[in-house]
């Protein structure tokens, strides 16, 4: 066995453990739809904490947080993590528990069932369905593509007799790498097996296990990298000397900007080479290096809207309904901000250190390195052993799969319960048929996602923040549905359609995601969309007939 194969065996060992979990969860399956989709509403506190945290923290929590900090400095913690700590728990406490109680009382399995009853509209589901599924699919694709690329990169040189490399430049695949199509297929199959067999219970168990794995591995990686950089104090000192703007949210005129100048030098060399090449042989023009300009107050503030997305995530809704009792939520509400801090602080520090880390006179991350999401992987590869590299890859895959499983299952659940059972079969399906359709649709969604991932749609990674913005902008709908008796069917339609229209308008203004730093009036686009969505909901609700007394009684009578 060559050393390049070590990560492969660690990953395979990890995936085998997941399969064992899936098979074990099958032994607890009672054969009913309530058990498949909601674990018979019997998930306890610990599993709920872990499954909610694992589902909301994607691979972004490890590699994205490091990459964003490398790019923009420590301010990303305040932008993304500490806002999430406050707002996610608010959503669990104020919306999740209420929705759990409605689900328990009226037997809901999906969001659409709740909205149909609350807004007295059978067709609202037909409008919400394409929006919810359309916003989840890019999220799924990011997971599957991220898994395929991660495996391909980390296994370079592992099996040179089996897989030849191809391509050149930054997208080259080195000889011996497990190909993208195979890596992403293996991840899809593993997730499919434990979700197919165990339903939401299988997903919750796997999430708990995977969340523990990625938290521990994140901390171990932090300690090892800090040690290799001469200790935590030395690692930070190097940043203070060379790129102090990465330790704050502003850029001063006298900042040395060492990395920026290094990147510019590499860019100028590449540009000169590109200009000197014959026109027919020129590749794409090198991308200009953006001068750091800090984070503005408004930009920082407007990020508070993004985490509201968890209030409308269909997969979170499904996890909420699995809770054994309302009290089960208590631990999740309290621990969520703390767990975010445990995962994010080390990653953000490592990302800032990576900008300035120098060993034996050369930067650990070379100048001109333009893929922030690959920073953590490169640090681990350069500074640690193949064993830790294998375990960290398992941790990254854990973070990816702990979100993928819930998303696959919730889309299968929406198809089976809303589209087939309600709109096509007019609620005449038997309990067993619902389980069969649920499983069939999970297989279908996994297959469709995999096939789409094979085409490697280029812009999908830029869609991530737009998906979050879409879900967050629908938050006023769910909040009003739960707390405002006067919210009407017409108000709900107005809010959904306004969200869709403003989202599309701003998405087009951003060049359909091409401008990754797009801000509108110096704020995240979500600030504008959510304002428009709220105004539409309130104004149209007040102008139209209130909901019937029966509906008000059903959702607002405390007895």
């Amino acid at each position, binding site marked *: 066995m060559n050393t390049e194969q070590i990560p492969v065996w660690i990953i395979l060992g990890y995936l085998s453990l997941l399969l064992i979990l899936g098979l074990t969860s099958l032994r607890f399956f009672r054969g009913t739809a309530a058990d498949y989709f909601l674990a018979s509403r019997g998930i306890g506190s610990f599993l709920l904490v872990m499954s909610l945290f694992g589902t909301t923290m994607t691979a972004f929590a490890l590699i994205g947080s490091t990459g964003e900090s490398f790019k923009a400095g*420590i301010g990303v913690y305040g932008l993304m993590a500490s806002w999430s700590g406050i707002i996610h728990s608010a959503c669990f406490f104020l919306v999740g528990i209420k929705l759990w109680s409605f689900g328990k009382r009226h037997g809901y399995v999906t969001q659409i069932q709740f909205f149909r009853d609350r807004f007295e509209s059978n067709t609202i589901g037909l409008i919400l369905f394409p929006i919810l599924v359309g916003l989840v699919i890019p999220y799924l694709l990011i997971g599957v593509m991220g898994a395929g690329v991660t495996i391909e990169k980390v296994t370079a040189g592992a099996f040179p007799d089996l897989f030849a490399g191809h391509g050149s430049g930054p997208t080259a695949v080195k000889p011996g790498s497990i190909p993208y199509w195979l890596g992403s297929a293996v991840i899809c199959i593993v997730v499919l097996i434990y979700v197919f067999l165990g339903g939401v219970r299988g997903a919750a168990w796997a999430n708990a296990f995977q969340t523990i794995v990625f938290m521990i591995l994140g901390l171990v990686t932090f300690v090892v990298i800090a040690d290799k950089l001469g200790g935590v104090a030395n690692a*930070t000192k190097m940043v203070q000397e060379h790129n102090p703007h990465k330790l704050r949210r*502003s850029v001063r005129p006298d900042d040395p900007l060492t990395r920026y100048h290094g990147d510019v030098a590499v860019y100028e060399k590449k540009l000169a080479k590109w200009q000197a090449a014959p026109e027919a042989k020129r590749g794409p023009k090198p991308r200009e290096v953006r001068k750091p300009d800090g984070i503005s107050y408004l930009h920082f503030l407007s990020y508070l809207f993004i985490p509201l997305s968890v209030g409308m995530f269909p997969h979170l809704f499904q996890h909420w309904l699995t809770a054994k009792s309302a009290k089960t939520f208590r631990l999740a*509400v309290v621990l*969520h901000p703390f767990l975010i*801090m445990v995962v994010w602080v080390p990653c953000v520090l490592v990302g800032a250190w990576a900008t300035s880390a120098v060993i034996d006179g050369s930067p650990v991350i070379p100048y001109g390195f333009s893929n922030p999401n690959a920073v953590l992987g490169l640090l681990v590869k350069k500074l640690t052993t193949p064993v830790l590299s294998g375990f960290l890859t398992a941790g990254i895959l854990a973070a990816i799969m702990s979100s993928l499983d819930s998303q696959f299952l919730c889309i299968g659940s929406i198809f089976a319960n809303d589209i087939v059972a309600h709109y096509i079969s007019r609620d005449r399906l038997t309990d067993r048929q619902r389980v069969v359709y649920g499983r069939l649709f999970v297989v279908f969604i996994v297959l469709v996602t995999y096939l789409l991932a094979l085409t490697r749609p280029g812009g999908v990674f830029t869609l991530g923040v737009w998906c979050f913005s879409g879900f967050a902008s629908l938050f006023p709908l769910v909040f009003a549905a739960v707390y405002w008796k006067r919210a009407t069917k017409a108000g709900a339609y107005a809010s959904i359609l306004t969200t869709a229209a403003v989202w599309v308008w701003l998405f087009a203004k951003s060049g359909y995601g091409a401008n990754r730093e797009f801000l509108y009036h110096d704020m995240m686009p979500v600030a504008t969309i959510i304002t428009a969505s709220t105004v539409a909901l309130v104004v149209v609700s007040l102008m139209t007939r209130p909901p019937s007394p029966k509906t008000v009684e059903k959702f607002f009578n405390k*007895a």
Partner: protein
Amino acid sequence: MNYLIYGLIVLLAILHQDFWWWDDSETLVFGFIPIGLAYHAGVSLVASVLWALAVKFCWPSDIDELETESATGQTGEHA
């Protein structure tokens, strides 16, 4: 008590906008964590504490009634 706890959560959200640390890369906590990061890690910890207080003092009373109903088998279960 409800108002006090929700008020403190709103205050935390306001204090999240820490313009006073915006330009500081010199102050380090424990000798290695920049103050802008340490402050926000603190915001996360305080958020956990405030949500613990919310769970204790602002728990919705109607939910407990549902728990009682649930124990006596009066809830709907169609799925």
